[in-house]
């Protein structure tokens, strides 16, 4: 199992699998080329690289992180035109009254990921996003399954 950390990206090919642990307000974006069975996973923390001065780590942001992941996958032999996506995360971990930017960051991350994928013409096959709990995800390039685990909830595959 290949591990992807916070603000990190990596590529994996069958029969290996790829995972990221404890997604909270961050979003895990799994891209997949079913022909070559090459998958990639990026763990993005923030929606937009252009609003943050410290933006050298491309994997940290939805916009640059997805571009980075596609480049990594194409270099590994995936076809850029054949990619599909599955996404998870973007929770609001703490409940507060009010609507500050900090608390809505999960939701904004999900929106930014969707906007970026749409602009690239990448179809989102499935998602498990929002709500108020953490998620560990595993992607299996053999089947295209995206496994989602959460504390006190049954495991599910999307």
């Amino acid at each position, binding site marked *: 199992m290949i591990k992807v950390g*916070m603000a990190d990206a990596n590529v994996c090919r069958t029969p290996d699998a790829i995972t990221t642990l404890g997604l909270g307000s961050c979003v895990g974006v799994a891209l997949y080329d079913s022909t070559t069975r090459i998958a990639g996973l990026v763990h993005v923390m923030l929606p937009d690289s252009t609003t943050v001065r410290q933006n050298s780590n491309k994997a940290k942001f939805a916009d640059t992180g997805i571009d980075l992941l596609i480049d990594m996958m194409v270099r590994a032999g995936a076809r850029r035109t054949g990619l599909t996506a599955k996404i998870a995360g973007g929770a609001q971990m703490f409940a507060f009254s009010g609507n500050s930017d900090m608390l809505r960051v999960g939701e904004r991350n999900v929106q930014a990921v969707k906007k970026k994928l749409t602009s690239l013409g990448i179809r989102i096959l499935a998602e498990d996003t929002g709500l108020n709990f953490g998620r560990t995800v595993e992607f299996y390039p053999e089947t295209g399954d995206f496994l989602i685990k959460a504390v006190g909830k049954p495991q599910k595959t999307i």
Partner: protein
Amino acid sequence: MQKENDSMDDFEFDVLTEIGNIGAGNATTALSQLINTKIDMNVPKVEMLTFAELAEIIGGAETLVAGILLNLEGDIEGTMLFILESSAARLFVQQLMGCVTGDEGEFSDLEKSALQEIGNIISGAYLSAISGMTNLTINVSVPSLAFDMAGAILSVPAIEFGKLGDKALLIQSVFNDMNVDISGYFILIPTLESYGRIMKSLGLR
């Protein structure tokens, strides 16, 4: 495991360590009184960590923890997060409520509100030490509690730090309660302006 830090000089780092020390000391006293048990505290460790290291130090991204988040307003604005390992959270709740609950499973609503109160008192003591030291007012929101994977809880402060850089400041305090070592973690995230105000009020800028 102290890391090279690129955004703060050594002196500022020492000041934050000292603030953490005093804050955590105050918090320990408050906790001791609350659960009516003598608690010792080791000198807190202050570290600048990368996001990956942050989760590792708390026992891995999937470790179950209780997180208590408070919003700060006033002269110091930002967020404060207090994290307890789940076993420690259970121990404190049992002592506060004077009853023994199971080791597994979810906290009841009553236990959750007890935990929230523990977080409130500990964080309040921590913050009042900082407030006293800097002469700056800090108003604290009602705390919000989450019980989940460490990685998921830490994503909240990590995202805030992520806007400023690739590292986060973590203050780890080890409480010693009846010969059981209990780790608590404070993560204080002042806004950039508030951070400047803290340093200025201490005569450092």
